[in-house]
């Protein structure tokens, strides 16, 4: 009951947060220099042309009036029409969201696998040169930003050993039978592993570039947690019972040590989605981030608003989900 109450309170605060964000974004993108009409004015346009185009896009009204019109539309599910693409914003944004989600989830899985393996190996072989090597690799992975990893990967696996595709999400010549935009998921469901392999070959490098810094964070934190847990009494007891070190780490220490890492993964996942903006651009991946950059360059105000709001919904949603998961997994919080 208290959990439900807590969730409802969080949902209410989330709604307030989103409204506040919408107001801020709406005002800021209209106040900063560079309006879309100025961007599209051709040589020779007169003041009358400026006025005509401003009226056409509703930019001749006050910011407050524009916000009321936009907010009224949003309440009815209408986020406006993109100035550059001339398509409904919601349709555009929801059309690109699955690509970004698939990329982010793949990056997260890769990060958990690499980080988890590094932490477990480092813990199992603590005090050896292997642990030192893992620490050094962690440091390098953490200190290089994801877009630089992207460039390194392009050079290595795109040019020197052309194993993966450099740009796009899928080979243009392929016929796609999908009914959703979740290509990777749907290719598995349909057992179309030919398409699945093509999608993975496109997605792997951007996902790995996103994953490398995160894997280092996960690896470091998990290893630290494991180290602390390994000194606890119940772990020592387990050893005295004669269990092997690997069993002790995996079965006894890991479940408890994973809890703080889970929280971190949740928080980092939102940053990961934010990081897709640059990576999607670098790999010409047709996701939300790539679209966001074009929207900003072109001062496509309705599209910028739509993308920011959607990102905010994802961020707050993921944080809410992580908090709930944490509460569900942590007995002290569950019964508090």
């Amino acid at each position, binding site marked *: 009951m208290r959990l439900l109450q807590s969730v409802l309170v969080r949902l209410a605060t989330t709604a307030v947060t989103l409204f506040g964000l919408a107001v801020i974004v709406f005002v800021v993108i209209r106040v900063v*220099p*560079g*309006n*879309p009409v*100025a961007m*599209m*004015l*051709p*040589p*020779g*346009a*007169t*003041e009358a*042309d*400026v006025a*005509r*185009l401003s009226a*056409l896009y509703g930019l001749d009204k006050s910011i407050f009036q524009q916000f009321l019109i936009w907010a009224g539309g949003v309440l009815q599910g209408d986020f406006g029409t*993109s100035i*550059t*693409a*001339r*398509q409904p914003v919601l349709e*555009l944004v929801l*059309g*690109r969201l699955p690509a970004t989600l698939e990329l982010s989830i793949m990056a997260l899985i890769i990060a958990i696998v690499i980080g988890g393996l590094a932490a477990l190996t480092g813990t199992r072989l603590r005090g050896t040169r292997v642990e030192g090597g893992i620490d050094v690799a962690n440091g390098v992975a953490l200190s290089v930003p994801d877009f630089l990893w992207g*460039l390194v990967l*392009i*050079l290595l696996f*795109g*040019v020197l050993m*052309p*194993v*993966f*595709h*450099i*740009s*796009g*999400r899928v*080979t*243009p*010549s392929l016929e796609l039978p999908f009914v959703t935009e979740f290509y990777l998921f749907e290719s598995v469901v349909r057992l179309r*592993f*030919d398409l*699945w*392999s*093509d999608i*993975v*070959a496109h997605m792997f490098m951007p996902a790995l570039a996103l994953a490398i810094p995160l894997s280092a964070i996960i690896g470091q934190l998990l290893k630290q947690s494991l180290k602390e847990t390994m000194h606890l009494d119940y772990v020592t007891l387990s050893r005295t019972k004669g269990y092997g070190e690997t069993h002790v780490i995996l079965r006894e220490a890991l479940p408890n040590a994973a809890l703080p890492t889970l929280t971190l993964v949740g928080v980092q996942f939102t940053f990961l989605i934010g990081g897709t903006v640059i990576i999607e*651009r*670098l790999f*010409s991946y*047709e*996701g939300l981030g*790539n*679209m966001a*950059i*074009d929207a900003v*360059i*072109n001062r496509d105000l309705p599209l910028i608003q739509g993308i920011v709001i959607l990102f905010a919904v994802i961020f707050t949603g993921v944080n809410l989900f992580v908090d709930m998961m944490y509460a569900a997994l942590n007995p002290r919080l569950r019964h508090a």
Partner: protein
Amino acid sequence: MNLNRRSLLQLSTAAIALGVTGLPARAQAIDELVIAYNVTLPSWDPTVGPSAVNPTIQGFYQSVFDQYILQQPDLKPAPGLLTEWGWSDDKKQVWMTVREGVTWHDGSPFTAEDVAWSLARVAKPETGSPIQFVWGTLANHRVEGNKVIADVVQFDPTIFKWMYFLTGYVLPKAYYERVGAEGFEAAPIGTGPYMVEKFERNAFVRLKANANYWGGKPDFDTVTIKFVPDAAARVAEVESGNSHVTLEMPYEEYDRLKGGPLAGIAAPISDIGMIFLNDIDVMTDPNVRMAAAHAIDKQTIIDRLLSGYGVKIDTLQTPEYDAYDASIQVAYDPAKATELLAASGYSVDNPVKFKIQTTKGFKPKDYEVIQAIVGLWRKVGIEAEIEVYEIAKHYELRGADQLAPAAFYNWGNSVGDPTTSTGFAMFGPSPHSVWDGEDLIGKIGPLWGEADEAKRIEGWKAVDRFVAENALVIPLMQYVQPILHAPGVVVTPHASGALLPHLMKRA
């Protein structure tokens, strides 16, 4: 199909291997041409919205749609959907003869009705054409047999030039009216050399050759244009063999790769780099302006910073433009610059100070070019503070006449007419000009409606001479567009900067 963990793993490995081996190889014969383009295509209607006036995406439009008048790679006009055109003797009407035997991509016949409807549509303010102020100079469009006639509301000597410039495209009347704006965006058709087969926003467009194209079927049956905005990724695309052609990479990369596994072509295009001078503060002093112009060693900047890929210019006309006059020169003369500044009381120890605005990364080495210029200015007694801004801010500041005393910009003029270079850049009342001097306005004003073409061009040359002599703007260089391509493709560059697949042939 029974799948267990082992068979799934085996199948996945095999599928990945298949995907990997399926990557295109440079050495293979080219069946499907793949182009890595530097920009994305936001919208398919080439006549309305911001995309319609974006010069960098005109290549997409020209692949699918035809303009009223064809523009050749050297920017010169040629018969296209219109085979002949002109004014009546009294300049009260325009007439256009429409090509026969042309079909739309859906197989329906192209007619004079399509031309008349296309012109009338963009002339209406409610359509939202950014160039309505040009198309609105014609009215009462009507079809007479194979001819389209329209009344001239206001004489514009460049009206036919706009017919191969921004928004000058013919759209299908019957199809557009049937499917509407949204339907047209979803499935655009034109009369151009290629038909749209598949379009993924922010990803690629796949084109099929139009076998019935009036200009002859293109060499490549299928063309995929990938949108790859990042220059490093574009270079990797052609280096790896994933794409056959790309453009707009750093000149150092171009030099590294051309002549090796890839071929290259670098030709001047209609984009120029220039410095707007705003008639405010110290820029009202002609000595300061002329000193700033004479202190810039343009050729050295081109050689050192742009690896020699650029053409020095002293007016806003490039050699391909109608009003280019090679005799107008502004020499690099630092001694003269020092002398001019001294006449106004400035020196290295007492420099004249102003701000210069520039983009950073919008054009090749834009910021570095301005840094070099500021360095050269410092030697003669000019201390300029650099402010970096986004291109969007430039447009807004220029529209409001609030640019700094000096501001770097690139000006495109793929139609090559002086009105769309010197005219709009320097005519005070234009929202694109920041120089408001009455003397210049007086010189330009009569040229807008000049009906005698030879007299009009000579008039613009005189304006360019006046502008150069008084240093009202500082033209810097004409840009060169680098294109890298696989040896199996022959690429014909277009001086407008549009990379057109139908101008590409198998080697």
